[in-house]
């Protein structure tokens, strides 16, 4: 299993007991609230709220925080550049370039928002299995074909990842060590190409299996979602927290 993906099947904890649809909507509402703020106190309480949800979701804390902090290198680069590219009151100088207070604040603001949203997303939605996510999105009226595409993708990620690992091991056994060389790029390209070819052939077998079971153009989706009083309590709490964050901003 790929670390991170699908760790939350039948996850327990308070969050695990909440209806998946509510969790998805809560993540979106929370993200909107946090992103609309600029005030430090509001953003910090947003991050604190996300940390609280993380604890309630019983996800492994350290790996999740590590994932939260990890960003694309180019985002990190842009954040580091901001103090120097944004005009404003000079704060300090580095290698002859002046850094502005406004730029620094902007970078911190973006960092806080990004981390709070991602953390809440992982805790609320990442703590359900990808299949449950698919079912929830279907019930939230995402197009049916998109949901089936999502479910087919998650169904085969693990199968193909295992295939990839076996091929990689076999490559290593023949002395392959990735480096920045043409040989490496060609080998990786062949690897990806071969996996695509096999994926297509597998999909032909899947289609054959479907026709053997009388496929008539529809995939079943069963779920047992039911909204109870806990879910309403959780929804109310989410609205309350988001209101508080926005109130801090306005104040």
């Amino acid at each position, binding site marked *: *299993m790929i670390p991170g993906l*699908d760790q939350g*099947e039948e996850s327990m904890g308070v969050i695990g007991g909440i209806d998946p649809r509510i969790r998805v909507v809560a993540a979106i509402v929370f993200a909107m609230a946090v992103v609309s703020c600029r005030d430090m106190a509001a953003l910090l309480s947003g991050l604190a709220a996300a940390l609280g949800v993380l604890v309630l979701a019983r996800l492994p804390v350290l790996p999740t925080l590590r994932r939260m902090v990890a960003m694309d290198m180019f985002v990190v680069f842009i954040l580091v550049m901001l103090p120097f590219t944004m005009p404003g009151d000079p704060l300090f100088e580095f290698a002859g370039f002046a850094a502005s207070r406004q730029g620094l604040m902007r970078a911190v603001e973006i960092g806080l928002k990004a981390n709070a949203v991602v953390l809440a997303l992982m805790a609320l939605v990442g703590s359900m*299995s990808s*299949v449950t996510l*698919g*079912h929830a999105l279907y019930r939230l009226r995402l197009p049916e074909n998109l949901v089936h595409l999502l*479910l*087919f993708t*998650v*169904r*085969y*990620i*693990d*199968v193909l990842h295992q295939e990839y690992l076996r091929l990689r091991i076999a490559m290593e056994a023949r002395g392959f060590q990735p480096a920045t060389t043409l040989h490496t790029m060609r080998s990786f390209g062949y690897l990806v190409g071969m996996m695509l070819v096999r994926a297509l052939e*597998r999909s032909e*077998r*899947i289609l*054959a*299996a*479907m*026709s*053997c*079971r*009388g*496929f*008539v153009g*529809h*995939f*079943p*989706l*069963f779920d*047992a979602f039911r909204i109870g009083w806990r879910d309403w309590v959780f929804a109310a709490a989410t609205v309350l927290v988001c209101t508080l964050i926005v109130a801090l901003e306005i104040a």
Partner: protein
Amino acid sequence: MSPLIQLSGIHFGYPGRPPVLQGVDLQLFAEERLCLTGANGAGKSTLFQIAVGLLRPARGRVVAFGRERLGKADFIEVKRRAGLVFQDPDDQLFCPTVIEDIAFGPLNLGKSKDEAKAIVGDVLERLRLGHLRDRITHKLSGGEKRLVTLAAVLAMEPDVLLLDEPTNALDEPTTERIVEILNALPQAMIVISHDPHFRRKIATRTLRLEHGVLDVPQPRCSHAASEGE
């Protein structure tokens, strides 16, 4: 008694490849558990696909459930009544959860959602797999996947079973479990297997596919002599 499935003089080759089947004759009668063996690439899986109409033979006749089957429409009924279990369970378990996968067939046969659910419950109970009902298919172990693909096919209440290496890469307890299940099923079946010990436990008859034709196998090993009839 007339055979449930009868293949005669089947010839087949994949485009641009040497021929795979060169005159296969096969008859399956009620209550038989016919085992097929043969080297990798001999064409065993290909033969199954021809029997249910996924592939069309270059020459030869397929008679199934009392009628010769020719066009695509003819084979719709054959696919329904002959439950084919694929060699790789990952090719067959394509729905996200076990209950959805097993219900896939019955729903396609026009059952309502509730009827389908009842069938799923029933099949899982018969195979003592009730605990797997809501599990996510891609997180099942290899043995569990195998058993669920079997359940998914049984849910369609087929008259004949075609099993492609059902014990491939299974441990001994799961293999035993499958032996038990198969021996208890009323359906006639054709089972592809490389494992002589497994074959000995279930087969009422064994054939070997070699050089494109089916033949009674020559025992090579003293303990294999008890195979066949």
